[in-house]
């Protein structure tokens, strides 16, 4: 079974982050929400493995506030 990668895995983090913000530029809140939803679905399909997706959902839920 694969494990969720929780260590740094993006080679150029600043570039990715800037790209993410740029993708939302000029979008209304509703358009941004729709964009995010499409992005989540595309990335989830890339992962595919339900066990990893479960871990990702848990990691997102766990990170809502102080560790």
């Amino acid at each position, binding site marked *: 079974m694969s494990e969720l990668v929780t260590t740094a895995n993006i080679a150029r983090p600043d570039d990715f982050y800037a790209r993410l913000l740029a993708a939302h530029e000029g979008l209304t809140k509703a358009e941004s*929400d*729709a964009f995010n*939803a*499409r992005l*989540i*679905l*595309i990335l989830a*399909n890339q992962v595919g493995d339900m066990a990893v997706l479960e871990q990702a959902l848990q990691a997102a839920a766990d990170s809502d506030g102080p560790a």
Partner: protein
Amino acid sequence: MSRIFETPLYPYKRSADQDAPAPVRHPVVVVGAGPIGLAAAIDLAQHNVPVVVLDENDKVSWGSRAICFAKRPLEILDRLGCGQPMVEKGVTWNTGKVFFDERQVYAFDLLPEDGHKRPAFINLQQYHFEKYLVDRVFELQAEGKAIEIRGGSKVAGVETRDDGVRLTVETPDGPYTVDADWLIACDGAGSPIRAMMGLDFVGRVFEDNFLIADVIMEAEFPTERWFWFDPPFNRGQSALLHKQPDGVWRIDLQLGWDIDKEKEKKPENVIPRLKAMLGEDAKFELEWVSIYTFQCRRMEKFRHGHVIFAGDAAHQVSPFGARGANSGLQDTDNLVWKLKLVMDGMAPESLLDSYDVERIHGADENILNSSRSTDFITPKSEISTIFRNAVLDLSERYDFARPLVNSGRLSVPCTYDGSPLNGPDCDTMPKRTRPGAPAVDAPLGDGTWLIDRLGDEFQVVTIDADAPDSLCEAGICATRLPLSASDSPALRDRYLGDAPSAVYLMRPDQHVAARWENFDEAAVRAAINTATGRA
């Protein structure tokens, strides 16, 4: 011309029971002459169990109602002797189209597997369906079977006893009393029997209304299932168009929760909605209009002593996925052979508890699937709407998103995994035919279908394996059906897998009880006992 659903088929007639000095006792009384009650009665009569069906009405279903019948129920109907006219009359369809907003996002093919006698689905109005069942009842009567439908007979009272029930039946001539060893309640989602017995029926209410209309038109639309999410003619809601026999089209329009039902049902309000959908110039005639809401719920137990609930009386699902009538037919398919064995003293009464185990498993599967479809079709929160629309937008371009689109997961039969009736499995054989699974049809070398060679008794199906012609274990006999995989690749594929030979013990409802590579008399005897609650 009077329409089929306006014609009395079993009008009230005074029964000899009404003039009897004491209540007459019947082995089985079925309440409700809908699809499930009629199927139960036919099955009982074919097993030579005398049966009386009570129904307050005397006609078939008003309007199309359940319209989509799946392969396994059609196979059950073949066993009941009325599958053929239904399939001949029904509309067979394979293509579905999904629309979002103003555009078609994709089309799908059901891609039914080859090598099955029956199609994946047919569309047939419930009134035709019931008419064929009633025809079959009359045919069995003509053959001398003790099967009777009493129309205009409303059950107004139920008194349960340890060994049966006493019913008060209201008729145009006044009430009378009748006793039954067993009562099968098939009296629908609003089951009066359930209410009179004070039994639970809990679950989830979906706050939505759907307008359903049967429309007669000469239309260019192909024989396909069309489903719209948020179309211009029904903004923020869904819509479905499906073809039925006789040029009748079924249209379902979601209306939302806060509406005036009586107002929405009026033709002057319905017709503009349909014109917006079908086009201003479309020529059509309204046959039937109804508004429905639904819940997903079930009884905690389907069997209460000598009263057994089946179909919508026991469980209710949303209409998405055609899981209502289809699952009810599987209920009585599961029940009748067990009841017969118990009535004949061949199996302990506890065998009937396996009806609860197996059909509650089925009901839960159906409730889960239909609740999920409903949550997709009618999102309940802002974020679920956002995800739903994201899936639909992606589905137009990307194949990966299409399996996420849920406009109804169409009914497939349930496998009774974990049932106490299941015997040994053999792990070299295909998973789809494991113990608990319904028989999977296959064309045989001699041009017949496997499903037609299976009956309503226990059978030992041998594939390139030896076995005696029949075997009786404490009064329950299994006859052998000898087959060979050498001239049927489908049989090999579906039943042998990596095994060189196979012996399957089939239950009377054509589900697999147990399987082995070779015949072992002691093992088959033990499996018969396990499958009948005698182990």
